[in-house]
C-alpha cells in the first residue's frame, strides 16, 4: 500500500512576510520550509505506514523546484517525493493546485491521500476536497484519528462538540487536523538518509495539466485590530465576574 502525503512548502513564518502589490499574493522567494500543519499529515501517514508496512510518498507543488521542506518530510521517514514545479504555476489558485496534486497522486499509485486541513499561509482549506472530487474518491475531512482496516478507512471527524465516526472504502482522501499527533523531529540519520531518497521533479507538461486560473484576488485589507480586553482589580469578586463574562459570550 502507498500513502501520498501532501506537503506544502511555505516561506518561514518567523521571517518577515510580504504580499506582492500586483497580485496580492504572498511573495515566495528564498528558502522555504515544510508547512507546520503538513508535518501533522506526514506524521499521521508515517505512523499508519509503520503499522501497515506501507510506504509514504510526499507530493508537493512548489516554485523554483524547491525541495527543502520536502527533504524534511523525507528525513522524518517518507520514502520518496514528487515535486511539481513550473513557472506557469505562479499565482495558481486552489483549484489549479488541486488539479496538479490530483494528477501527481495518480502517478504515485497511492490508494490513500493524507493532507492537512488547510495551509498556514493560504488558508483556503479547499484543496483536499477538490482533489478528492477530481480523483472521484471520497473525502474524509477534519480527521483527528485515522485507521485503515483492510480496504476500509475510518476516521474520527472533529466537530464542535465531539467527533463523528466516518468510514469509506479506499481509495480515499483524508484531511487531518493539527494537534492530532506529535510530529517527530527528523533524526540525524534520517537527515543523512534523505539525501539519497528519490525526488521526482515534474512540470505541468509532464502532468498534462493546463495552467488555467479562475480566481483573482481583488484586494487585501488589514484585519481589524482586536479591541483591548477589560482589566479589573480582584476585589474578591473576580470569580463571579469571570463566570458572568463566560456566560455572556455563551461558552458555558
Amino acid at each position, binding site marked *: 500500500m502507498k500513502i501520498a502525503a501532501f506537503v506544502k512548502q511555505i516561506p*518561514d*513564518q*518567523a*521571517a518577515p512576510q510580504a504580499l506582492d502589490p500586483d497580485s496580492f499574493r504572498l511573495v515566495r522567494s528564498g528558502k522555504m520550509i515544510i508547512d507546520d500543519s503538513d508535518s501533522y499529515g506526514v506524521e499521521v501517514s508515517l505512523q499508519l505506514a509503520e503499522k501497515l508496512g506501507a510506504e509514504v510518498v510526499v507530493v508537493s507543488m512548489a516554485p523554483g523546484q524547491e525541495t527543502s521542506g520536502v*527533504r*524534511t518530510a523525507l528525513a522524518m521517514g517518507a520514502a520518496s517525493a514528487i515535486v511539481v514545479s513550473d513557472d506557469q504555476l505562479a499565482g495558481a489558485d486552489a483549484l489549479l493546485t488541486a488539479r496538479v496534486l490530483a494528477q501527481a497522486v495518480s502517478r504515485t499509485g497511492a490508494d490513500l491521500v493524507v493532507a492537512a486541513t488547510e495551509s498556514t499561509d493560504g488558508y483556503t482549506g479547499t484543496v483536499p476536497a477538490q482533489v478528492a472530487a477530481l480523483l472521484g474518491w471520497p473525502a474524509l475531512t477534519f480527521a483527528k484519528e485515522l485507521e485503515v482496516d483492510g480496504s476500509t478507512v475510518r476516521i474520527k471527524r472533529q466537530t464542535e462538540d465531539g467527533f463523528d465516526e466516518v468510514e469509506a472504502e479506499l481509495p480515499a482522501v483524508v484531511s487531518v487536523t493539527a494537534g492530532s499527533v506529535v510530529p*517527530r523531529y527528523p533524526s*540525524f*540519520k534520517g*537527515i543523512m538518509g534523505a539525501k539519497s531518497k528519490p525526488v521526482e521533479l515534474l512540470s505541468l507538461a509532464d502532468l498534462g495539466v493546463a495552467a488555467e486560473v479562475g480566481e483573482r484576488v481583488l484586494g487585501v485589507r488589514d484585519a481589524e485590530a482586536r479591541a483591548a480586553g477589560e482589566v479589573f482589580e480582584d476585589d474578591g469578586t473576580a470569580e463571579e465576574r469571570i463566570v458572568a463574562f463566560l456566560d455572556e459570550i455563551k461558552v458555558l
Partner: protein
Amino acid sequence: MLVVMSCIFARQPRRERFKVHQEFSEVQLQLAATVADFVSSEVLPNAGAWDEEHRFPIEQVRMMGEMGLFGIVFPEEYGGGAGDFTSFCLAVEELAKGDASIAITLSAGVGLGANPIYQFGGEEQRQRWLPQLCTGSALAAFGLTEPDAGSDAGATQSRAERTGSGWRISGSKAYITNSGTEMTKVITVTARTGQGISAFVIPAGAPGLTVEPAYRKLGWHASDTHGLTLDGVEVGEESLLGEEGRGFRQFLAILDDGRISVAALALGQAEACLRESLAYAKTRNAFGGPIGRFQAIAFKIADMETAIEAARALVYRAAGLKDHGAPFKKEAAVAKLFATEAAVAAAREAVQIFGGAGFIEESPVARYFRDSKILEIGEGTSEIQRMVIARSLGLPV
C-alpha cells in the same frame, strides 16, 4: 512585576543565519534547523523552570537521543550517524542558544562520555556501550578531575590495584558532569596504576561507587554534576580502557575535541545574549524612545555581534580542521579561549542593557550571566588555553 520575558519565545528565521559566514552542507543546515526547532518548542519555554528547580530535563535529553544527537560523530556500526564534527558543533551551538545546561549535557555526553570509549576502547567495550550511548538510551560520564587534580591531571591520586581477576579502584572525583542521572549507565575514571595513569570503564551502580549529592552550582542548574567516591570498586580485566599507564595521554587528546564543542556552546550562549539584548533594546523605552537609539546601548550590541562573528569563524575553522584530519590543537585552544571570553562579556553586557530587569532571576539574561562563567573554567581554563597557545608558538611556559 517586571516583565521582560516576552522576547524569548520569538522564533528566528531558520536558514539565513548560516549562510552569511560559511557554506555549510545541506545536511548540516537541516540538522541545525531541526535542533533550532527543538529548542523553540522544547527548550526555550522550559529552561527558566529547569534552572529554578535545578532539574535535569531527562525527557528532553531522551528526545535528543531519539534525534540521534548523541551519535552524530560515531560510525553506523555502533549506532551512530557517521556525521562530521562540524555537524555536532552546530547541534551544540543551537542547543546553547536555548540553554547552556542542555547543551553541555550533549557536549559532555559525547565528548567526555562516549568518545573515550570509542577512541580507546576495544571492540567488546565499544559494542557493549556505544549503541546505547549513540541512541541516547544511556548516558556516559568521564571522571578525570579530583579535589586535588584539575588542570594538573598528572596529580591524580585515585589508585587502581590489580586483583586476581581485574582491578580494585579507590579515590574520589569532583565536578563530574552527567554522572548521576537516571540515564547514566557508565563512568570512565582515571586512576594511578604502577608508574602511570590508566582509564577504567565502570558500570553505574557498581558496588563501592558512591555518587555524591548533586552540587549546588552558580549556573548550569539543569546540568547534572556530582562528586564520586570510589571505595574499593572491583572491576574485571575488561574494564581497562586502552593501554595501562597511557591514560594521561589519552585524555589529553580527548580534551582537544571537547574544547571545540565547548567553544561552540559559548558561541550559542553569546548568540542568546545578543538575541535578548537586541529585542530588549528595540522594545524598552527610556527618555521618549527605545534604548537601542542610544550609542551606549547600540555599541554594546555591535561589539557583541563582532565577537560572535569572530567566534563563529574560529569555532568552525577548528572543527573543519578536525574534520579534514589536520592538526587542530592550537586552533581548538584559540577558539575555546576567544568564544568563552566573548560569551562571558556578552552575558555581562546583556545584563547591563537590561538594567534592573537583568538582575531579576526570571530574566533569561540573569541565567546567561550565571551560566557563562564556567565556560572560562571547564575543559581547560582560559589560563590553560593561553599556555597551550603560547607553547605552540615555541614559548617555554
